[in-house]
């Protein structure tokens, strides 16, 4: 199974010569007439966690949502510039947005399990994409996804119970299991811990670190501590512009830009 085999070829954290998994060039996003994002150039390295930080309304979530074209679902939203996934322009008309989203999964701010059973929640993606050949195959995908999301031991005896009956942290891990069950290459996380308590947050952060072996992860977070804990690369956004990006330890210990320094020391934001 590709999930398991992918685990064995986990790449080292830093590979300076490897091509970026995703790359944005001069990305701008408009909501109607209002421009929310200006000329963002950012490389997303494979098998790394890239965190997007910045004050509210700085455009970090907007950038994240343009990586799997979830902005398409918002009326009047328009994206300019170029975003590539393995060198393919994802806004090219030849790209099927449905396929793109199967390759670039997403976990939302608020846990949003479907009002179905735990099993059906995880099986949803594999079913609609025809990933499983038979029932046993599907069972295996569901079980391994739940295991990878660190939820297996808690739910293995009640897979047929509704996913909405879990606690907030469990629901979020269920959403992560659901997202990785479709075997995406990139996993986008939009403030995945902001609705959770500190203990559930710690569990998810640990999980993100493990998932890095198999997935390229982009995470939006409000918490600078979280960015420092989970990510290898950090990008700082302010007022719709990408101010600074680089290795996480560089951004937090030795920021080049005055605005970045002000933000991470708590003077703005």
């Amino acid at each position: 199974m590709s999930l398991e085999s992918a685990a064995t070829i986990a790449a080292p954290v830093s590979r300076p010569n490897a091509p970026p998994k995703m790359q944005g060039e001069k990305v701008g996003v408009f909501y109607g007439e209002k421009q929310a994002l200006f000329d963002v150039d950012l490389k997303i390295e494979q098998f790394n966690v890239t965190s997007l930080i910045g004050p509210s309304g700085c455009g970090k979530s907007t950038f994240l949502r343009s990586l799997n074209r979830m902005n398409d679902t918002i009326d009047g939203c328009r994206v300019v510039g170029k975003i590539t996934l393995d060198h393919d322009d994802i806004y090219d008309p030849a790209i099927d947005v449905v396929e793109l989203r199967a390759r670039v999964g997403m976990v939302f701010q608020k846990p949003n399990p479907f009002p179905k059973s735990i099993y059906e929640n995880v099986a949803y993606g594999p079913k609609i994409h025809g990933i499983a050949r038979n029932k046993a195959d599907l069972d295996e995908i569901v079980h391994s996804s739940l295991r990878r999301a660190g939820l297996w031991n808690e739910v293995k005896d009640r897979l047929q119970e509704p996913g909405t009956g879990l606690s907030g942290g469990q629901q979020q891990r269920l959403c992560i299991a659901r997202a990785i069950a479709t075997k995406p290459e990139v996993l986008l996380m939009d403030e995945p811990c902001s609705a959770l308590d500190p203990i559930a947050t710690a569990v998810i952060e640990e999980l993100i670190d493990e998932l890095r072996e198999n997935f390229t992860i982009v995470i939006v977070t409000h918490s600078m501590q979280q960015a420092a804990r989970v990510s290898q690369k950090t990008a700082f956004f302010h007022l719709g512009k990408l101010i600074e990006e680089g290795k996480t330890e560089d951004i937090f210990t030795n920021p080049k830009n005055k605005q970045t320094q002000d933000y991470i020391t708590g003077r703005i934001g």
Partner: protein
Amino acid sequence: MSAGWVVAIVLAIGALAYFFAAQRARVQRDGTDRAKEVPHSLPTYHGWLAFIFATVPALLVYLVVSSVSAGLLDSRIRSEVTAHIADPAAASLSIGIVRNASNALTQLDLSGPNVPTSYAALRDMAKSAGITLADSGEDYMVPLAAGVNADAGVHKLIGQGLTLLLSLAGAAFAYSRIRLRLRARNQVERVVLCSLLGASTVAILTTVGIILSMLGETIHFFSEVDPLTFFFGTVWDPRFAAAGSSGSEGQFGLIPLLMGTLYIALVSMLFAVPVGLMAAVYMGEYASNRVRSTVKPLLELLAGIPTIVYGIFAVVTLGPFFRDLSAALAGGFSFIQAQSVFTAGIVMGVMLIPVVSSLSDDVITAVPRAMRDGSLALGATRSETIRKVILPAALPGIVGALLLTASRAIGETMIVVLAAGVAARINFNPFEAMTTITVKIVNQLTGDLEFNSPQTLVAFALGLTLFTLTLGMNVYALYIVRKYREQYE
């Protein structure tokens, strides 16, 4: 003095009470040393309190005395008439004659020798005054009518006197009670609260009243017709008889009517549910804001068309169209009748489309956006998202909406009166005429009838059956809708 005058005088007393009470409160307020005592309520509250004391009890007493008086007069007429006539059907006719006679007497000039002694004389006098009375009155009715009128006069005097006295007493009491620390504001608030409560119970009490009045007549009906033959009878043949005579026996089988009702409702739902649901899915999920803001009001406009207009459309246009169409299809023989289950069902279905789509649209848009995003982000298409996430999540709400729609279909009257026909029979061919409970209620109550024969009383039994049916469905629908709401709150 007429009732209108009494109310006007009471209101005038109330207005004066308001004015003087507010004035007195103002004087007390101005003359007080606030360091020692702080006035509790504004003068206007003292005014309103006086107004309430002057009007509310007086008007309530007036209402009570008037209704008691009506009851007393009624029972006097009833007891004297039944002393003369034993047969209840004939007696109820005579009671009506006496009422009309006493009405006529109040409008005639009865000074000196003009007092009529016989019914014939009264009728002639009334005729010359332009009032028509029934022919079949008897002489004993005249003094009875006159006596009733005298009683009514006494009652009226007592009632009005009591009302005015009470109004004045209330005003005086409220006026005398004004003190700096009187909590007039709180008391007025309490009265306002009571009237709000009263307003909200009016609808409930009316429903209870409707049930009770129908229940009374229904019990009366079942005293003459066996409930078993009503509920399980397969033949509907009420056999109209002349009013007053209850000789001929009809057959009152509910089954053909119930089947017709359910059959037509089924056809209309089969048409309205898919169309309405698809319209709702389009509105809720696909339509751009501009399309939605035009199409949705247009669709809801359909719900504002009076149902009789749909009925006319069915009879004049659609019925003949289907008949001719079927004739063309079958080569001469029109297998769809102009009045049929099919025609009525389709037209009723058109009427129900906006109901289905509007209710389902509300339910569908109530599914949180997070559900849609979650599914789309997994690479599902829009239609997969709708089929696999949104509709299942909205299902209980949609079922509730459909139950509400079905109870509309079952209770619908005017379309079926015009489009379904009046033939009460058990029939499974949708292209032939059938009839419904509502049609038969209309039929049984059309004309000038006394409610004393099973032919008319059956309408109440039918009405109560219909009421129970739709009430049950509505209660169940509300239960489901409420349960569904809890999932997201």
